[in-house]
């Protein structure tokens, strides 16, 4: 399926919950309402026309006015790729986990939580993965202040 067809399929099925579609870019993407992400993911995985069985990347991006969560999906059977984005507010960003759809999302979401502070509701093990468990702050945010010390050690 071409990116245009996938975008059309999504709009067709989910209507107004798909906020924006840009299938003609170098990396085609659609913006999905955060509350709908689990349904959209399950649909894209299960449907035979898309069969997106491979979650390639799940990451956060910090724009000045919002935090985005990016899902890059790929289909091993059909060899097509599509990107979903969800826009979250900067204070207390939260979204439902897609761990039940793709097992790999477990660690990727932990990293997004560690680096951006995005809380994934329903995650089985929501704790930091790369930074120590008692680290303060979310390093990849643009307004991150480097701490002066960690547990009495100068950083």
């Amino acid at each position: 399926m071409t990116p245009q067809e996938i975008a059309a399929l999504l709009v067709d099925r989910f209507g107004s919950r798909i906020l924006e579609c840009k299938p003609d870019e170098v990396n085609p993407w659609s913006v999905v309402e955060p509350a709908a992400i689990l349904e959209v993911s399950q649909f894209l995985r299960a449907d035979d026309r898309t069969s997106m069985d491979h979650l390639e990347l799940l990451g956060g991006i910090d724009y000045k006015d919002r935090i985005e969560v990016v899902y890059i999906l790929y289909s091993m059977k059909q060899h097509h790729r599509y990107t979903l984005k969800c826009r979250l507010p900067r204070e207390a960003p939260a979204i439902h986990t897609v761990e039940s759809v793709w097992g790999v999302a477990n660690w990727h979401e932990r990293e997004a939580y560690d680096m951006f502070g995005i809380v994934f509701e329903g995650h089985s093990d929501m704790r930091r993965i790369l930074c120590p468990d008692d680290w303060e702050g979310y390093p990849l945010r643009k307004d991150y202040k480097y701490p002066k010390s960690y547990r009495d050690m100068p950083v």
Partner: protein
Amino acid sequence: MEVDFSGDVMTLNMGPQHPSTHGVLRLELKTDGEIVAEAIPHIGYLHRCFEKHVENVDYPGVIPYTDRMDYCAAMNMELGYVLTVEKLMGIQVNNRVRCIRIIMAELDRIASHLIAAGTYGNDIGSFTPFLWCFRDRETILDLFEETCGARLLYNYNWIGGLMFDFKPGFEKKVIEFIDYFEPQVDNLNRILSDNFIFVKRTATVGIMSPEVAINYGVTGPNLRGSGVKFDVRKDEPYLGYQDIDFEVAVGKGEHGPIGSCWDRYMVRIREVKESCKIIRQTVAQLTPGDVRESIPKRVKPPAGEVYMRTECPRGELGYYIVSDGGLKPYRLKVKSPCFTVMSAFQEVSRGSMIADVVAILGSFDIVLGEIDR
């Protein structure tokens, strides 16, 4: 495996400092006697905030940082990043650059798989293949040193071209090495891969079914060991791989169920032979040219985003770049193959014995620099 964990579960730590964990990885093993109930990996000991650093350097300056992620196959790390930026900017490179990039990437693939095979033998207890693999790897590192001055971290693939061209006579040395090396792989098979004890230790252990592998996003030799024929070089070819004739090595389960540690290890050995084929064909395709001809004066990609993946020795390496039109990347996210395969580790090692945990970890061939970035 049906196990009843009603007994006392003891927590054992394979701590960050350990001879067999291929880097600083902490494995928390919850064991009931000999059987492992859970093997929980804890990472982050080598986290150097690569993604934060690169937001403060310009695009060409990111290349040395990418080297240091997977330091065993640095050429492939650079290649992935450079191809991603070139895709965003729409740069086409000439034939000489394309061929040299393929030759260097495949030589690095051979070097990386030699490390994987040698250290895996070491973990299982066979000390000799380790030294044989490293002896052969030395020749590859000498070739790299001759071209770009460094043995391990190269800064060689630049955006739009390469740092240096080959020295005269380099192609002959590469072919000489490949001619010498292909029989050595058979030697290695005799001492390690087909060894009865090695097969007994690895061919029934760490079975990862294709469904588990795809669910956990496993790629590369780990996925192919489970029988799934999937290689980025064939699926979404870059750099002209579609015109090169090579096979994708897949695990066939000769000594046990498909998806065992032995299958994953054997896929790597077969891939080494395929890399030799690729190098021979590419050396024949080399044409003269200037390797710095397409390098832009200032690397300023247009605003937008791009995702590109390449096949590095450990799996599918993906770079996701968000550019705001400036000189520095706004966001660079790396999808590292070892990160995803480690997330599957807990699932695969459940129910195995303690000694098998080491075998499974070795068969995944992880490099912590890539997991932690």
